[in-house]
């Protein structure tokens, strides 16, 4: 087992990784920018190294500084968290080249899934259901038109180097196709340095359902069930649930079996999440994330598993030690992502939190780096807390979430707490009746 792990991230996830390592008796090294000098995980870590000024490019994305920090502290392994360098195959390779373990999948799989066309290709060959679409990159507009006529409008043109909802253009009919195609290519080139685009059928009312998988370095793969992450605004998830209100246990087992078979075929290692669109009972693979996800806590609550510890154990060469039939699903969990933003305009609201009070009680978990007197810096994303509840049923989880949201206090900055309270009180949310478009409509009608 590792003696020392360097945490190449910040905020709540850095604290999350520190906690798991601490419980495993592993020393932690927190690397941080000058803006994070007083961050909670920096205070708690066994060692800390300041690696740069506030800008992410010069600190949390600064591979040389992070590797140097690992070298001078003698870290055995690096956990990249999510975002930042977690899906940077070059960084993963560099970590390994320096004799340290990268706590995550292999660089080859990170690279494969980072190219959305290659990812779909791999999944197609492994028998995972896909959204109908082009078989590869669209080289010409004529090719685009031919594919669109085959899969039928409306269609979506997507950047191969994109992902996470970025670089997508809809064409509802043949008259919109040319513009969508050309603009998508130009935007993709500008944003990702690569103008490769592909096409998919546009689903008009899908749910976003993703599957959590975990594989060790010895060929054992299990899934930990699904998460429904349909509640999104501008492709950013706000609320996630484990399991999905619309799936039966049989449907979960079925998809889970397909997914684990595919990953076994790939020789995948460590944590991963396969994202699907679900519409009319059909699953369509859209992309795979080769890292731990923000919303991993809801899976942990339902399956009674510590996914970060599993990542560390696997990276250290240990076997999973359990099979699929030993993975049990119990109750229902919901997570609210609380951000430092105005709950109506979403204008960022960094600044000093003069009073922070986390809710408590049975089945309530808060993953947050906040504390009273902490100043939320303006340089990074606005997530400040994840409020996660578990209940024996979805109804109990919702009641618990309402209660916990009402107890939570974050004052001194604006947060989306009031928005979450309105979402949880909504009858459609309570009925589980929502698609990926629901939240945008809810927000725009001032719900």
């Amino acid at each position, binding site marked *: 087992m590792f003696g020392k792990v360097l945490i190449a991230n910040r905020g709540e996830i850095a604290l999350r990784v520190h906690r798991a390592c601490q419980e495993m008796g592993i020393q932690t090294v927190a690397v941080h920018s000058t803006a994070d000098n007083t961050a909670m995980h920096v205070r708690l870590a066994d060692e800390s190294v300041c690696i740069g000024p506030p800008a992410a490019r010069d600190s949390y994305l600064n591979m040389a500084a992070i590797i140097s*920090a690992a070298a001078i502290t003698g870290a055995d392994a690096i956990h990249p968290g999510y975002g930042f360098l977690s899906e940077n195959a070059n960084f993963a390779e560099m970590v390994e080249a320096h004799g340290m373990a990268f706590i995550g999948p292999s660089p080859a799989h990170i690279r494969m899934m980072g190219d959305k066309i290659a990812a779909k290709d791999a999944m197609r060959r492994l028998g995972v259901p896909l959204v109908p679409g082009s078989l590869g990159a669209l080289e010409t507009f004529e090719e685009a038109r031919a594919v669109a006529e085959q899969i039928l409008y409306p269609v979506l043109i997507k950047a191969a180097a994109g992902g996470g909802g970025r670089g997508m253009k809809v064409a509802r009919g043949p008259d919109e196709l040319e513009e969508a195609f050309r603009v998508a290519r130009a935007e993709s080139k500008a944003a990702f340095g690569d103008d490769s685009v592909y096409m998919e059928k546009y689903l008009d009312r899908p749910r976003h359902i993703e599957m959590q998988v975990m594989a060790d370095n010895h060929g054992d793969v299990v899934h930990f069930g699904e998460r429904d992450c349909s509640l999104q605004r501008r492709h950013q998830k706000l609320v996630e649930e484990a399991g999905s209100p619309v799936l039966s246990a049989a449907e979960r087992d079925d998809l889970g079996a397909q997914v684990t078979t595919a990953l076994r075929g790939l020789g995948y290692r460590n944590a991963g999440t396969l994202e699907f669109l679900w519409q009319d009972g059909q699953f369509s693979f859209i992309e795979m994330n080769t890292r731990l996800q923000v919303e991993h806590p809801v899976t942990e609550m339902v399956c009674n598993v510590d996914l970060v510890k599993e990542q560390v154990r696997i990276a250290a060469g240990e076997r999973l030690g359990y099979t699929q039939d030993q993975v049990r699903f119990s109750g229902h969990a919901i997570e609210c992502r609380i951000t430092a933003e105005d709950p109506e305009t979403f204008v960022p609201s960094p600044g000093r939190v003069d009073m922070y009070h986390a809710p408590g009680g049975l089945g309530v978990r808060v993953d947050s780096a906040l504390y009273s007197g902490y100043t939320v810096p303006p340089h990074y994303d606005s997530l400040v807390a994840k409020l996660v509840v578990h209940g024996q049923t979805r109804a109990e989880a919702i009641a618990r979430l309402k209660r916990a949201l009402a107890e939570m206090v974050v004052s001194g900055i604006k947060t989306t707490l009031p928005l979450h309270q309105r979402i949880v009180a909504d009858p459609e949310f309570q009925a589980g009746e929502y698609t990926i478009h629901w939240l945008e409509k809810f927000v725009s009608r001032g719900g």
Partner: protein
Amino acid sequence: MSGVQFDPAAIRELAKILRETDLTEIELVDKDARIRVARQITVQAVHATMAAPAAAPTATAPVAAIEAVSDAAHPGAVVSPMVGVAYLSPEPGAAPFVQLGARVAQGQTLLLIEAMKTFNQIRAPRAGVVARILIDPGSPVEYGEPLMIIE
């Protein structure tokens, strides 16, 4: 709580250091033992950085590296622009780049910081006299860490 070993002289000494340097908190860690001395002021304290045990000749307890707020804020402070290991000589056994009290010109090499097998020259930002050398040769340094004071 009986039988707790602590050194009253060490605590008094730490309290004195707190007052003299305007720090608000000092924490010493040595394997299982931990002493923390703190006082309330409105100024936010800079916490102790890496625990690099540097045994002082007559100290009764190993001292953790303490980053005093006053050093980094000194107008003549030369701070590290990167993470790495600092060396005061061009190579082992050679004379150091600068000595205490030496006059240096702007741009003159003061020390090296090694990171990922490359050596980076750290140069004097302005002409002056080397008033203090804050790091030991071969010690790890982080971004922003004060290295020398040039007055």
